[in-house]
């Protein structure tokens, strides 16, 4: 592996800017690395245009033009974010041959800032999973130990970044899908405030929870990528109207910060090793820490599996075999075409979630399940909003367990769902949240949650936490 691949994304961009490395050399080095490490299965598709784009960037730069902050740096993109002319599969048979005719807003912004789409990363089908094993292209392996899962659903993005196959990457986070794999692969994953990044071009799973999320090897690189992708977008009516002010300086007076350590995040269902490492990391910080209780944490998985599946069952109704997806053969009429296409095109976990979602929305069950879950969602949000009046940030582990073995939880959906028990509350309330490595030895993430719209304070604080922990 070329030495430059180990540098931070920011450093690589600086070297590009100074002309000490060309974009072509850099992209070639990444392509070589990806080829060497095919067994990790981080990528589904490598862009045919990455190299020619790199050459084009080099010649634009040679002509004295500013190509933008990314300066010809490649970026890995999760395969549920549409890329014009590059196949976007969602790791599903349903979209195996889908070549989008347009770019997602975030992809447009990356290209407009001098970034190059390196390739599309592997994931759980339609982002439904916590291990990146539910993919028609096979499971992603954890690059730190290939017998383990990389976490999910953005496992390909996390593995690519951890394994130096990309400087940084975009994933998505509906219930923890960026933070969990970041934790499992010992990198940083950041879910912004709901609406701060446009969802236009993100294949919808659960629209009121989905958010595009950067993954990187350090907080500074997260902020670098977040600065490029954030902001209002008139093509996403749920994006936040207020203009986005890019972060200029990281860093923060950490000693005046008040942290709430969530008791339930260190209780039942959380492995002792995880608890010990995270508590030790929190105690290392010079900030004031108080224990707080969020009893609803223990209900977040059931609430999430009602709301997210209900929204998914509605969103995935679009895969009808008519407009842009797989179509089954041998149907007798239109209804049969729908049934055969969907039964053959969706994988096991996706069908399970469509079934749960259809059930909780169906006549006779809607009030008992869906409406109740929505009320419980308000209960959680109210609780957290109240806590944020007293505390700057809430802290707890990202995952209740260390990375588990490939295949370990595939036949037990409920056990798999429990992996998200500590990350879901941020999605239910729209809060920004980040996962940072809490240990140098083990893949255990420290999660920090901030009030809505305080992405910038969260990143500045996380930058200090990262520094404090690396001195450990």
């Amino acid at each position, binding site marked *: 592996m070329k030495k430059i691949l180990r540098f931070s994304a920011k450093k690589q961009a600086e070297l590009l800017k100074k002309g000490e490395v060309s974009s072509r050399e850099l992209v070639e080095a990444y392509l070589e690395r990806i080829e060497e490490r095919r067994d990790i299965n981080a990528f589904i598709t490598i862009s045919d245009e990455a190299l020619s784009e790199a050459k084009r960037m080099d010649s634009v730069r040679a002509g004295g033009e500013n190509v933008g902050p990314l300066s010809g740096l490649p970026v890995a993109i999760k395969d549920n974010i549409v890329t014009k002319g590059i196949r976007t599969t969602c790791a599903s048979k349903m979209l195996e041959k889908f070549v989008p005719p347009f770019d997602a807003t975030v992809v447009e912004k990356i290209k407009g800032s001098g970034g190059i789409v390196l390739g599309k990363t592997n994931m759980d089908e339609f982002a439904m999973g916590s291990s990146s094993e539910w993919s028609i292209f096979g499971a992603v392996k954890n690059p730190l130990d290939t017998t383990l899962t990389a976490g999910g659903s953005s496992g390909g993005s996390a593995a690519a970044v951890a394994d130096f196959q990309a400087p940084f990457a975009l994933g998505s986070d509906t219930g923890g899908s960026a933070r969990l794999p970041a934790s499992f692969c010992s990198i940083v994953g950041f879910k912004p405030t*709901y609406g701060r990044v446009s969802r236009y071009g993100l294949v919808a799973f659960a629209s009121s929870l989905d958010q595009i999320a950067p993954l990187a090897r350090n907080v500074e690189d997260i902020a670098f990528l977040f600065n490029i992708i954030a902001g209002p977008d008139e093509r996403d009516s749920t994006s936040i109207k207020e203009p986005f002010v890019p972060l200029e300086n990281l860093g923060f007076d950490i000693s005046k910060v008040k942290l709430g350590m969530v008791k339930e995040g260190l209780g039942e269902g959380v492995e002792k090793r995880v608890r010990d490492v995270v508590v030790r990391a929190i105690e290392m910080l010079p900030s004031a820490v108080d224990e707080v209780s969020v009893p609803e944490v223990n209900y977040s998985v059931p609430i999430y599996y*009602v709301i997210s599946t209900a929204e998914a069952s509605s969103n995935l109704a679009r895969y009808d075999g008519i407009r842009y997806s797989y179509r089954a053969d041998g149907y007798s009429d239109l209804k049969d075409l729908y049934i055969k296409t969907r039964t053959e095109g969706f994988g096991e976990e996706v*069908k399970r979630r469509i079934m749960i979602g259809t059930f909780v929305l169906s006549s006779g069950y809607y009030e008992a399940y869906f409406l109740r879950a*929505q009320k419980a969602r308000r209960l959680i949000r109210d609780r957290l909003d109240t806590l944020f009046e007293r505390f700057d940030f809430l802290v707890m582990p990202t995952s209740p367990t260390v990375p588990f073995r490939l295949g370990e939880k595939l036949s037990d959906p409920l056990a798999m769902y429990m992996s998200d028990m500590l990350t879901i509350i941020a999605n239910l309330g729209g809060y920004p949240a980040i996962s940072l490595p809490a240990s140098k030895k083990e893949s255990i993430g420290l999660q920090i949650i901030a009030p809505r719209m305080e992405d910038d304070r969260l990143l500045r604080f996380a930058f200090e936490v990262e520094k404090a922990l690396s001195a450990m």
Partner: protein
Amino acid sequence: MQIENALVKKVAALARLEFSDDSLASFVTEFAKIISYIEKINELPLEGLSPLSHPVEGVQMLREDKVKGSLSISDALSNAPSKRDGFFTVPRVLE
């Protein structure tokens, strides 16, 4: 609640999915387990709370109602499994 084969078949029909007779039994068992786990929500005090459908309440992003370009017909049809003369084709629905 009791989850029976007939209920699962009815939900599958609504979702335009099908389970073979072989796979139905194991699916029903698993489905019942998940639904019974979800019912844990009933332990929460939800009296008087209004449902929250979205994390950010308030005015949404709106734009000017102006005519703009959109996907061309050929782009829109580029991923269609079956098309003819600028249209998606579907099995006959009228006799």
